């Protein structure tokens, strides 16, 4: 009750048509990485480390996102830009609930879906089978899958040069694999869809089609996050952009403003 009466003033009018779908509240993400074999690789040095109780030197902590806050609303497409290693992908994974924030919290509506370039399914299996498995893994019923599978293969365009859908996925080019994965993930209506560089690998024709698909998802009241190094595709699909640099939110605003600032800084 108290919740409903509190914003009854001017704020409720401003927010009338705006329902938040993702609230990121002062999030810090710290993760541990195995550096692999560095330094002493002999059994003797490993034993020395255990005896002298020094921590394994090949684990390092990376503070990838440092206190980012923003709110995303229904029907928004938000671009995430920044140089390599600025924490964009890490932030997406935190929103998807795949990486726990060390401090702060991420609140989301429904279950966000992350679509990344390395979202590998089973490489030994045919494209068709991957479509079925991918759809089932997203929680579709077998009937829905049967109905949607031809559409997905059609949209991905992998059959444009012969019957590739029945060949194992390991025989696909990287672009074809990425196209099929995008086609699978975007077949379902998501409340929140997180796209990580997935559109970059497709050819020009597919890019136009997938940008159209992102617009459709956005129009059906979903929220889309797009990580990309291609500023032009951000300008085409997103009206709001967030600029991350070294894990800190540098700028958050209309795409044109932020992109101009980003490009001028170089």
């Amino acid at each position, binding site marked *: 009750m108290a919740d409903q009466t509190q914003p009854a003033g001017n704020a409720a009018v401003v927010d009338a048509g705006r329902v*938040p779908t993702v*609230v990121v*509240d*002062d999030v810090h993400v710290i993760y541990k990485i195995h550096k692999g074999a560095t330094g002493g690789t002999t059994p003797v040095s490993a034993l020395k480390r255990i005896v002298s109780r020094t921590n394994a030197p090949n684990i390092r902590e990376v503070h990838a996102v440092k206190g980012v806050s923003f709110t995303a609303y229904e029907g928004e497409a938000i671009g995430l830009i920044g140089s390599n290693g600025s924490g964009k992908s890490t932030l997406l994974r935190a929103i998807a609930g795949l990486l726990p924030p060390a401090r702060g919290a991420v*609140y989301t509506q429904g279950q966000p879906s992350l679509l990344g370039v390395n979202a590998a399914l089973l490489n*030994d299996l045919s494209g068709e089978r991957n479509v079925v*498995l991918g759809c089932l893994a997203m929680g579709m019923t077998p009937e829905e899958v049967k109905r949607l599978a031809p559409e997905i293969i059609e949209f991905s365009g992998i059959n444009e040069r012969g019957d590739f859908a029945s060949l194992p996925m390991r025989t696909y080019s990287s672009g074809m694999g990425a196209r099929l994965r995008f086609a699978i993930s975007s077949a379902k209506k998501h409340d929140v869809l997180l796209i990580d560089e997935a559109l970059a690998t497709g050819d020009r024709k597919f890019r136009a089609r997938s940008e159209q698909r992102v617009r459709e998802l956005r129009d059906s009241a979903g929220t889309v996050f797009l990580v990309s190094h291609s500023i032009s595709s951000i300008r085409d699909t997103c009206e709001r952009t967030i600029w991350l640099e070294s894990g800190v939110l540098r700028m958050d605003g209309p795409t044109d403003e932020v992109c101009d600032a980003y490009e001028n800084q170089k």
Partner: protein
Amino acid sequence: MANTAVADPESGLTRAQLAQRYGLRVAGERPPLAEYARKLWAYRHFMTAYSRAKVASSFSNTQLGQLWQVLTPLTNAAVYYLIFGVIISQNRHVPNFIAYLCTGVFIFTFTQSAALQGTSAITGNLGLIRALQFPRAALPITVTLVQLQQLLMSMVVLAGIVLFTGEPITFRWLLIAPMLVLQSIFNVGLTMIMARIGSKVTDLKQVMPFVLRTWLYGSGVLYSVKLFEDRLPGWAATALESNPILVYIELARYALLDSAYPEHIASSPLRLWTLAVTWAVVFGVGGFVYFWRGEKEYGRG
């Protein structure tokens, strides 16, 4: 404007309050156990399709292909027979030693592969885990489903061996079905436990072969279980005879081998069934709860 961390200056709400007002949930939150089980049930089609796909792709780059599903258990049995049947000549004690040995080997392999492949159920599917959100327990269950399909193939081979070596078909053969159900439940639980530990302790994979070899010798696979009673102090023999794999193996022998019952079966059928149900329930429920408690951590790092 009392609060400093306001999301919307106009509404004066903090971000957490804003999220609560619109019913947003913390990302990656672990659902309660009952809801988790219901979600898992909704993914049953995924699990069956995934396990079928895995079986189909398992031998896809070999010449003989799916024939290996039958050849692997046959070769295994042949090797053990050569060593323990012919060279060491154990068969003085047990009348139909080949069938006795094969039953042990096939039932043991079922649980052995559950423990082995369980350790990589999470680590081997990171791509899927990091891309899609689904109840992670679907993965260890898929592992068990794959092995169950392979086991059914071994069971056909075993039935052939048992009949070929002159055992009669009795009504006791029907008991193999409930026994395999119980063992499968036990295996699912074991796979889940191994999956959670294996996702954290990566050294486990190096240790497992040794643990499993010890388990093999403690399960009376290669020799009559009666040896334990003859050579070990009473408490040790009783402890060994309660070991879950041994229980399942003895039940299978009790069901299939007319010549081995009653002299060469470790305990009374009643005791074996009680133990089999207990182990299945303890590991099935315990493993599921244990795996669920770690749900948030899988696929991270």
